[in-house]
Structures are given as structure tokens and as C-alpha cells.
């Protein structure tokens, strides 16, 4: 079965750069780019939704089908 990739939406207007999503991602998908979080390696994403669950600022949405 072919792996489908999610769409990780980061709302920069809400992001406060706390690093929580980057640190708690088990697959190192996210990184800090300047002040905001950004997607580094979408291929590695396993859709565990940890970033969406833990982001205190409602700034990340992991959109799967």
C-alpha cells in the first residue's frame, strides 16, 4: 500500500515559537525556522498527531484524508 502523506498546516499568526511541537515529534518532521515552526521532512510523518495535540497555541493542523 502506498503511503499517503498528510498536509501539515502551520498558522504563523498563532505560533509563538515555543518549540513544543518540534521537541515532541517522534519522527523529527518539524523544525524551527526563524521564530516559527515549519515542516522539515514531511516524508517521515506517521500522522501520530502529537504536534496537533500538544501545540498550546492552536497553530498546527495535521490534515489527513
Amino acid at each position, binding site marked *: 500500500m502506498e503511503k499517503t502523506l498528510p498536509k501539515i498546516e502551520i498558522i504563523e499568526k498563532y505560533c509563538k515559537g515555543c*518549540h513544543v511541537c518540534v521537541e*515532541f515529534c517522534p519522527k523529527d518532521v518539524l523544525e524551527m525556522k526563524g521564530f516559527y515552526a515549519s515542516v522539515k521532512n514531511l516524508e517521515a510523518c506517521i500522522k501520530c498527531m502529537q504536534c496537533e495535540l500538544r501545540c498550546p497555541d492552536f497553530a498546527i493542523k495535521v490534515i489527513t484524508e
Partner: protein
Amino acid sequence: MAFDYDKWIRPGKLPHIWCPGCGHGIVMKGLIRAFETLQLKKENTALVSGIGCASRLPGYIDCCTLHTAHGRAAAFATGVKMAKPEMDVILVGGDGDGTAIGGNHFIHACRRNINMTYIIINNYIYGMTGGQFSPCTPTGHKASTTPYGNPDPGFDIAKLAIGAGATFVARGTAYHANQIDKLIVEAIQHKGFSVVEILDDCPTTYGRRNKYKSVIEMMNRLKEVAVPVKAAEKMSAEQLEGKVLTGILYKEVKPDYTSEYAKVIERAQAAK
């Protein structure tokens, strides 16, 4: 699929005022997920708070909300519940708001066993007013008003609630984000006064005075100190030293205040 939090958020209210890394947002997400699980109606849900960082939470949520005087959330919420017993009344507040300024209201709401849910977000400090020590600041820890360490022993909110007569007491942490909504769902479903204490981090006023290098370190500390109730049964007293129990700590069925009061009304009307 991404969870749709926007349904419960007042349009245009985000970003919220909480500091970077503050776990209050995580608790708010848990609360919204719990509302969604229970399929609560916005017009039938009242969210009441006092003053403080945590008490800003109802301002962001789109339901019936009441932002009241410092520590008086329980008093105002009692009024709401007595006037409209069919409403789901949920209180949100911090440790200072709930156990210091509102300590008396809190214990008496517990004693009366009013069918409400009190979510106390315990970040061990008064965040909004500048980091003064609260009744929950652990002994020896620093705050802006105790720069040489706090000499007072801290409150155990869960034990206080059980002692005062609350019939449902649970504890979670901002690190265990998945558990928050489950505890809140159980608390709202319970008929009686439910207390859910959520341990949280305050990187701005508590963390930086107590040598926590980052938000991540504070979150990991919550992970380290938390022990689920079931796991704690198999642990010795030494192993449990410095740990906090999480999960549902106490539950009992007792008559709740609004139904008892309805009986009083019936008796009074029959006596005419």
C-alpha cells in the same frame, strides 16, 4: 483528520494571551475535545471563571461564559446552577484563584456537592500578577515574593477537595494531553461536585526562577512526577516519594445539592 477546534472558539479571539509554552492552551484543547465528545450544546453550557491566567480561558470559548471576581467563580457558578439546574456548569481557574482567594468558596462548593465541574489548572504560582508564590508553590521553591525559597508547605488540591466533600476528584497534567479530555468527560458526567486538577507549567514566572532551562524541561518534569493511580498501588512508599498520583483519585455517589434543594422547594410548597 485534524480536530476542528474552531467550532468552539470565538471568531477572531486567537492568538490567545498565554505565554509561549504555557500549557493552558493544551488544557483548553482538552476541554474543547471533551465538549465535543459529550456533544454539549453551546446554549446549555456555562463556563465560569475568576481572575488569573487560567481564568482567561472562557473568553476564548464560544458558549455561555462568565468572567467574575477574583476567586468567586464557585459563588457565581452556584448562582447559575441554582437558577438553571439543567445547565452544564463548568468552572475554570488557577491554583491561586481556586485555593487562596477563592479557597473558602471552593471548599464550600465541595461540601454542598453541587453538580458542577471545577477544572483547576495548577501552575504552582500567580502568573498574571508577576509570579508571587501561591498556596501550591512547593516548599523551597522560588517566586518573586520568596526569592530565598518558599518556607510554606504546599496544598494538595485533590486531598483538600476530597476532605471538603467533593464526590469526584481527578488529576492530570499538561504533558499527558490525551488524558485531559477523558478526565473532563468523566467529571462532567458525574452527578455531584467534580474537581479536575491539571498540573501545568509556567515557564515565564515559575520556570525561570526555579532553574528550568526550557518549556520542554518543564513538560518532561510533569512526565517524571506523574504516576497513574493503578501503577502507584504496586509501588512502595519510597518509590512514591516526590511523585504525584494522576487519574481518577476518588469517586462516590451522593445526593447532589440541586436535587436536594428541589425537594426543599417541594416541601415548602406543600406546607402552604
